[in-house]
C-alpha cells in the first residue's frame, strides 16, 4: 500500500496480497480481540451536532456524567473519529452533511442515533423537512428520550462497547 504502485510487480499484485495478509492476520482471535478492545475503549465521536440534543450530549462529557471514563472523547475532525452520534432531529439539509461526514470517516465506524427525533421523528414527526437517520445511515444503538439523560447516552456507549467486543457491531463487518 505504501509504495502505491497498483501495477503487478514480478511477484503478482502486491497490494492485493498485502490486503489479504492483513485481513488474515486480523481474523486471528488474539489479535481480533485486542483490536476490538482497543476500538471499544477509544470511541471518539466526531464534533457534529445535528439538533437540540447537543445540549445533553455536551452534558455527557461534562464533569457530572464524565464520559471520558470510557475513553469517549468528542474530537474534532471526521478523519480521526470512529463514532458519529446523530443528536436529535435530522433535517434534509443536515442529512446531506451527515452522509458526507459519515463517508469521510475511516473504516471501522459506528453510528448512534440519540433522541426520540432520531428514532422516528419524535415531536416533529409530521414535519416536511425531516429525515429518519435509520433510512440513510447504518445505526448501531438508538437512545430514546427527548432529550435523553446523559446517563442514557453513557449507557448507549457501554452497549456499543459490548457489541464491539462481541464482534456484532455493523461497523466491524464492512
Amino acid at each position, binding site marked *: 500500500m505504501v509504495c502505491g504502485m497498483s501495477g503487478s510487480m514480478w511477484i503478482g499484485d502486491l497490494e492485493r496480497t498485502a490486503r489479504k495478509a492483513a485481513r488474515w492476520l486480523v481474523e486471528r482471535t488474539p489479535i481480533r480481540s485486542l483490536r476490538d478492545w482497543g476500538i471499544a475503549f477509544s470511541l471518539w465521536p*466526531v*464534533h*457534529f*451536532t*445535528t*439538533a*437540540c*440534543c*447537543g*445540549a*445533553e450530549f*455536551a*452534558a455527557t462529557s*461534562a*464533569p*457530572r456524567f464524565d464520559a471520558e471514563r470510557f475513553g469517549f472523547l468528542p474530537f*474534532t475532525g*471526521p478523519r480521526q473519529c470512529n463514532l458519529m452520534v446523530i443528536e436529535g*432531529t435530522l*433535517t434534509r*439539509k*443536515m442529512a446531506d*452533511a451527515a452522509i*458526507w*461526514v459519515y463517508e469521510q470517516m475511516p473504516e471501522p465506524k459506528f453510528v448512534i442515533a440519540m433522541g426520540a*427525533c432520531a428514532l422516528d421523528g419524535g*415531536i*416533529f414527526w*409530521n*414535519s*416536511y*423537512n*425531516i429525515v429518519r437517520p435509520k433510512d440513510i445511515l447504518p445505526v448501531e444503538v438508538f437512545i430514546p428520550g*427527548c*432529550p435523553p*439523560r446523559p446517563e442514557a447516552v453513557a449507557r448507549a456507549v457501554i452497549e456499543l462497547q459490548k457489541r464491539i467486543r462481541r464482534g456484532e457491531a455493523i461497523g466491524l463487518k464492512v
Partner: protein
Amino acid sequence: MSEEEHILELLIGPQHPASGHMRLVAKVDGDVVVSLRPDIGYVHRTVEKLAETKNYIQIIPLVERPPLADTANHNLGYVLALERLLGIEAPPRAQWLRTLLAEMTRIHSHFYGIGIHGIMLGSSTAFMWAFWDREIMIELAQRLTGARLTYSYMIPGGVRRDLPPGFEDEMEKALRYLERRIPDYHKIFFDNPVTKARLEGVGVLRKEDAIRLGIVGPNLRASGVPYDVRKVDPYCAYPELDFNVITREEGDSLARVMVRVGEIKESINMIRQILKKMPDGPILEERYLKMIPPKWKDWMAQHRRIKLPAALISLRPPKGEAVARVEAARGEAVYYIVSDGSPKPYRFRVVSPSIRNVVLFEHLIRNCRVADIPAIYGSLDYFPPEADR
C-alpha cells in the same frame, strides 16, 4: 494577482468544532476575514407549520424543544400569549413559581453560553466548570418539575406542580455555593491574560448599530441600551422584585460575557427574594380548579401537584389574536397567536432571540482575524436550533 485569487472561501460547515448547527461561509484573505455569511436552516424543523396541526396544550412541548438550554422562558412566553387570548390570569402563587423557574433557567442557560464560549476560545476548564455549575441548577429544576431541561411546567391558567418539601434550604445552599464559585471563574477565565487578549476590543457592537439591527438580550445590553422586557413590560412577579438591568458600554465580546455573569448574580438575588416573598394559595386558576372532580382534590393536595383538567386538552380560545414578549436568557422572545375559535391555532408565529441576533455574524465578523470567528460567535450565545425553529 487579481483580487479573487488571494481570497480563500472557507466553509466552516455544520461539521466543525466551533460552528454549531450551521455553516459559516467566510471569505478569508491571509489571516484576515474579509466577509462572513451565516448559512442557517440546518435545524429548521417547521415549528410554525406543526403548531397549526396541534392542540393548544400540545404546543407547549413543541415550543420548548428549539431553545433547549433555555426552555422555561419560552414556555412562559407562549403561555402568557395564550392567557391573553383566553383573557384569564394565573393565581399569584403560580405567577411566583413561574418567575422562580424562569430565573433558574436563566442561570443555567447563561452557564451553558459561558461554557460553549470557553471551549471555543480553547479553555476546556471554563467549559467543564460552567457545565458543572449548570448541573446544580438543573438538579434543582428537576426536583421542582421532574425533568432536566424540558419542563413543560407552565400551563394556561397556572403551573403543574408546587414546591417540593425542603426546596428552600437546598436552593439556599446551592445559591451560596454558586456565589462562592463565580470569583473562581474570574481568576481562571475572565481575568486570564489570554482571555483578555482574545476578547477585549473584539467584535465591537456600537449602540446605534445594535438598535438599528434590532439586536436583543445581553448582546444589546452590552452595547449600552438598558432594554430588558422584565422592566419595560413586566410580567408574572417581576414588578414586586427589585433587580437592576446589567448594562456595559464597550459592546465588545468581553462586555457581552460580563453582562451574562452580572445577570447570573442578579438572578441569584432574585431567587432569594422569590423564595422569601412567595405567597401561598392555589397554583391553578379557580375556573379550571372547579372542573377537577372532588375525589382528585386530596390526591392533589397530598402530591402537591395538579391533575390536568379535561377542559384544557381541547381548549377553544375565542376568535382573535394575542402578542406576548418575554425576556428569555438569550434575549427577547415574541409569541404571536392568531386563533379562529378552533382547538388548533390558525397562525402561530415564534420570533426567538437567536433569529434576531443572526445578523450580527455579518455585521461583527468583518476584517477581523480568523481566530476571532469563534471568539465573537461564542460571545453572542447563539443557539442555531432556536434560530431555525
